[in-house]
């Protein structure tokens, strides 16, 4: 076997290129930023999903750290086992255990295992890359798909404006379990992302991070707009970035200079294209109302 791992990591990144993510993939960027922020002493358990598929085409792997792929539904359980083994060996201070996956793997299918692992109080960092649908299998809706997004299982058409439900508040549900640190961040705010990853790594107990990662293929925007779209989601108020410590919101990323209209975020994306046809004005108002409610609830903007 080609022993590439004995050489230096490529460009000082712990996530090597050559993976088969689409051009402009927000998730591959977030995975690299997370690993670089955590450093080399991590053990990663990875759920099935885009991230697992594009980064581990056997016999190749993009990971420069110990990494294990588990099933869709049991990643937090596998990570729990790793953490328990480290504890039994008396080496729990030597590595940070990370369980990561997409919104399908953590917020839908693996949610039971996630709930159990947090309840048991394992010292694990859980990371959800939220690309708002099951992108790997061809854009099916998940619990984190936003209101009115068109996916293959919630198609927009004559009788429907797309996904009829709002995003599941996974961060709040996890915080309600009593997790000491829960944060929502976005790949568009890389400094915020790195700060939250490093802060989470320093806290003992179950930590949870939700990272907003645009998907050019599933969302239908230009590959170069990944970061812009991620920023717009925050600046319109549709994706509030906050930190919760012991169940209380302790900080939010304020919107500056002032909130943008939701149309700015929706328009470049094909999954919201149907909202700009005649007859959809009411739907745009509903989405604006969701953004306004977020701004009010999380105090994102005072003006």
């Amino acid at each position, binding site marked *: *076997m*080609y*022993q*590439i*791992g004995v*050489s230096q*990591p*490529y*460009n000082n*990144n712990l*996530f*090597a*290129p*050559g*993976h*088969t*993510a*689409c*051009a*402009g*993939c*927000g998730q*591959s*960027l977030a995975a*690299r*930023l997370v690993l670089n922020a955590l450093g080399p002493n991590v053990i990663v358990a990875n759920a099935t999903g885009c991230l697992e598929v594009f*980064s*581990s*085409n*056997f*016999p*190749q*792997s*993009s*990971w*420069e*750290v110990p990494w294990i792929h588990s099933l869709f539904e049991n990643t937090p359980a596998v990570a729990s086992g790793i953490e328990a083994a480290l504890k039994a060996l008396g080496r729990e201070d030597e590595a940070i255990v990370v369980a990561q996956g997409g919104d399908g793997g953590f917020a839908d299918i693996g949610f039971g295992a996630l709930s159990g692992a947090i309840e048991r109080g394992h010292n694990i960092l859980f990371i959800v890359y939220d690309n708002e649908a099951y992108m790997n299998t061809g854009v099916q809706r998940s619990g984190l798909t936003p209101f009115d997004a068109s996916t293959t299982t919630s198609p927009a058409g004559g009788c429907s404006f797309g996904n009829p439900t709002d995003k599941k508040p996974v961060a709040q549900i996890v915080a309600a379990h009593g997790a000491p640190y829960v944060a929502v961040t976005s790949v568009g705010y*890389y400094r915020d992302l790195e700060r939250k990853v490093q802060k989470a790594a320093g806290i003992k107990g179950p930590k949870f991070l939700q990272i907003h990662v645009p998907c*050019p293929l599933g969302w239908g925007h*230009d*590959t*170069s*707009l*990944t*970061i*812009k779209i991620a920023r717009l989601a925050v600046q319109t108020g549709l994706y509030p970035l906050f930190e919760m410590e012991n169940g209380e919101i302790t900080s939010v990323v304020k919107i500056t200079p002032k909130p943008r209209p939701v149309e700015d975020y929706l328009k470049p994306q094909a999954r919201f294209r149907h909202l700009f046809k005649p007859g959809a004005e009411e739907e745009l108002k509903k989405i604006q109302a969701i953004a306004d409610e977020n701004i009010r609830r999380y105090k994102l903007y005072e003006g």
Partner: protein
Amino acid sequence: MKITLGGVAAPGSSRLNKTGGWRVFYPEFLHIRCTDCGLCQKLCPEGCIFKADKKNFYADLEYCKGCGICAEECPVHDIEMRPEVR
């Protein structure tokens, strides 16, 4: 292909898979207005932008998929996407 026990793969071995062939546009680093902020290097999804020297970044075209994020995010528009010629 030999299948290893447990499906073990060598770390970082995906580097053998050169994804540069996917590219339709390539980033041209103009090196005129660069302020050395390093945002292109930070936000490249492949992590394939290197810093050779002060204010001198370049993309490793063996891996660059030509997404255009570096050109879009460069605050001083010092990177341009040009059609790939093969």
